[in-house]
């Protein structure tokens, strides 16, 4: 079972990359273990309890764009397709039999597996996908993941997108407005592309409380808001990702401390440790805590039209003046991984030596600053971060290191999240600003284009490099995955030379679990614990 269930994509906590705790990520030790020593020794059955933050929405699935709801939805829904994190290739362990593109990567044909049904018995057919995707792309419905539909021809213009076509019961044809070789990988973000049953579509409010899904688990009792969500094994499941435990109880807590106390009390079997309780838990549990890297990137962006940040050498110098290792160890309790690329390590195509200027080298930093001709004397750098999300300490540490090495004074500015976003959208930052990014789908493209591509969704630096855009476009049109990744890497190299942003680190997560459960691991693609695989010990 484990070999089949591979890295699917999901995290989608880009909406939530406020702090290290908000989103997860993980390691792919499972993939390395495959075939050699599979640690999955437990048997199916039993019930366990896990901690969860109240999700936003469960239905329609297209309104789910954060790791909390996808934790539940990934149990009650099968994805269309999964992506292997090692190779980046598609794995057909979900609802799709085959996904193919035409020569120029614009028309995609999705063939569905025969005989699969929703929990209520409705067939999972092309119509159920078209219904969901058309609903999602219509701006009147304000779905959180509507952005995923924006590449489809005619999306965002009305109740039906011209690019979504039902060919026959098992076949769906999607026309994109531009070539996009990573569309298959994108489809592996399950919530955005989940089908919707007619019964659910007819009464979305009640479906939100008791979703009708397609996966190995189903919700037999309604969602108790802010308290509990229970999923139970679906007896008629015919898919390829079967359930281990008979049922899972997700409990919600007001504060991370309350959750940890319940864990100590034996009420919880699995929980992600928030920074508030991490040190206390580490003292008690020690090595029993599972720590793994996530796909979340934290970086500082520069307003590259403002002096002195308009000088490439200054940006490089600042980056080299920051000792990422030290910050990770001292400020972040070691629960993060210094960046070596814009793309984070778990993603196919990520490199551990791509970023020349990400290493700490005070001498070289001073040289670069001298070459730039900028005199730090009397200059104060304004640093920005959002308040109350645990960024104060590390931003100040980085600012101090820059001051010590290069001589720039610093001033720290923190604002509320809403205001921070407004300043971002308005391009009002006058100095380095903190931001985070987490994957929507496991492709280097999903880091390069939004962060450093011209007018990228999360490009707030004003950086625009036609050569880079061209390489990304070539990657989009590439016919083989290797070729695409190579082109995206070349694009990444240009950004890592120009340094409109300085990658700081990729996140880490810590998970505690009781003796009563086994086979706990972090699924970096989902951005959450792989709940479906957890076994209950006898």
């Amino acid at each position, binding site marked *: 079972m484990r070999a089949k269930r591979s890295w699917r994509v999901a995290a989608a906590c880009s*909406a939530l990359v406020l702090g290290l705790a908000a989103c997860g990520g993980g390691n792919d030790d499972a993939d390395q273990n495959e075939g050699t020593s599979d640690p999955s020794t437990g048997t199916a059955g039993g019930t366990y309890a896990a901690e969860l933050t*109240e999700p936003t929405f469960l239905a329609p699935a297209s309104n789910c764009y954060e790791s909390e709801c996808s934790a539940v939805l990934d149990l009650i829904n099968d994805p269309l397709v999964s992506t292997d994190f090692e190779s980046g290739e598609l794995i057909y362990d979900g609802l799709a039999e085959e996904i193919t593109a035409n020569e120029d990567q614009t028309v995609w044909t999705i063939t569905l597996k025969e005989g699969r049904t929703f929990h209520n018995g409705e067939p999972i057919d092309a119509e159920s996908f078209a219904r969901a995707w058309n609903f999602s792309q219509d701006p009147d419905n304000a779905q959180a993941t509507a952005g995923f539909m924006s590449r489809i021809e005619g999306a965002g213009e009305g109740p039906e997108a011209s690019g979504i076509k039902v060919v026959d019961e098992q076949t769906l044809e999607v026309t994109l407005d531009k070539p996009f070789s990573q569309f298959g990988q994108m489809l592996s973000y399950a919530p955005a592309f989940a089908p919707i049953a007619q019964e659910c579509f007819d009464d979305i*409010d009640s479906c939100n409380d008791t979703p009708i899904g397609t996966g190995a688990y189903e919700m037999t009792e309604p969602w108790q808001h802010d308290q509990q969500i229970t999923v139970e094994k679906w007896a008629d499941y015919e898919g390829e990702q079967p359930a281990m435990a008979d049922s899972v109880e997700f409990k919600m807590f007001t504060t991370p401390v309350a959750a940890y106390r*319940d864990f100590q*009390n034996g009420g919880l079997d699995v929980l992600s440790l928030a920074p508030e309780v991490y040190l206390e838990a580490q003292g008690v549990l020690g090595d029993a805590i599972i720590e793994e890297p996530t796909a979340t990137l934290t970086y500082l962006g520069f307003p590259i039209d403002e002096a002195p940040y308009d000088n490439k050498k200054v940006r490089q110098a600042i980056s080299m003046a920051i000792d990422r290792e030290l910050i990770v160890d001292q400020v972040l309790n070691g629960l993060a991984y210094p960046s070596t690329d814009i793309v984070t390590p778990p993603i196919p195509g990520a490199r551990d030596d791509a970023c020349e200027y990400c290493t700490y080298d005070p001498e070289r930093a001073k040289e670069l600053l001298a070459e730039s001709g900028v005199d730090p004397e009397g200059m104060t750098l304004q640093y920005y971060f959002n308040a109350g999300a645990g960024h104060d300490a590390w931003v100040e540490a980085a600012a101090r290191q820059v001051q010590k090495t290069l001589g720039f004074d610093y001033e720290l500015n923190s604002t509320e999240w809403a205001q921070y*976003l*407004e300043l*971002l959208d308005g391009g009002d930052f006058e100095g380095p600003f903190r931001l985070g990014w987490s994957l929507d789908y496991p492709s280097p493209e999903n880091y390069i284009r939004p962060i450093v591509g011209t007018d990228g969704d999360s490009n707030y630096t004003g950086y625009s490099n036609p050569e880079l855009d061209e390489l990304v476009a070539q990657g989009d049109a590439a016919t083989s995955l290797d070729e695409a990744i190579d082109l995206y890497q070349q694009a990444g190299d240009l950004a890592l030379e120009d340094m409109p942003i300085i990658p700081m680190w990729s996140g880490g997560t810590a998970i505690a679990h009781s003796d009563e459960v086994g086979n706990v691991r972090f699924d970096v693609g989902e951005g959450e614990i792989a709940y479906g695989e957890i076994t209950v010990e006898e």
Partner: protein
Amino acid sequence: MGRYVARRLIQFIPVILGTLFLLHMLSTLTIQIVGDPVRALFGPNAPPQAIIEELQARYNLDDPCLEQTGNPCVGLFVDRIGQYASGDFGVNFRGRSVMEMFLERFPVTARLTVIALAFEIVVGITAGVLAGLKKDKLIDNLVRFTTVVLIAFPVFVFGSLALLLVGLKIGLPLRNSDWAPEWLGQMLNVGYDPDYPWLSLVLPGIVLGAFSLAAIARLTRTSLIENLRSDYVRTARAKGLGARDIVGVHTLRNSLIPVITYIGIDIGFLLGGSLVTEGIFNIPGVGQLVFLAIQANDAPVIIGVVTILTVVFLVSNLVVDILYAALDPRIRYD
């Protein structure tokens, strides 16, 4: 009596309107200064503009006055009053009805209130009477010392300590043991358990009531000491009444008037839910609802719930004022 109640009910209107206006101004200013809460639902990768606009319209946040700092947005205020007057308290950012969420949680908070009140009244008044009767003796000093400690400790510290020491260190072994009765372990639980809707609220109820307990004990004590010196007590003694009748029938009844006033205000506070206690013990009550809404900057919930709580507060105070008459025959409402 009827006229008094009617007069009081009419007084509710300006109080509620005033509260609503304050809340409205605060939330409007927050949006104007801090920024659009709809945009903040999303991360740095902004969704298409059409979606932001649709959501703003859905949550009544599309009025252009929300972009002009200092503009009181009177139009929005009038709309909201009309909406509330028809019993519609709006929806939160996830489309759930505010009234429904409040009603779902109110019973839990009400149970917690009953436990906290019972605890603070029984223990508080007993301690106060004992201390008052034995002024400056050991018991009086003990009560005064304990109450000072209780008042001095912030609820947050007291609650966290109670949870760690009582709930975990004592309660956990009890719950795991074979000999201890089930109810005892549940009474000392670390959090709310829906299977034990009353028992699992006992520890948080005690924590919540502790502060008021101290206040009630001290009020009872002072008031009793004062009344014991009054003329009517001397008369009663001269008549040859026993100590039990003097204290139980005459003095205590009079001494309880300031205590009842305090309890009346306290009921209002307790029914509003305790943000801190409900947070520590993870109790799905009204306080938790407000706590989560503040975290999420969910103005419709904050304004809706606080308005409902204002009404609860006013009504509970009215009931207490009417109770005065029962305690003190000199008080008449007409």
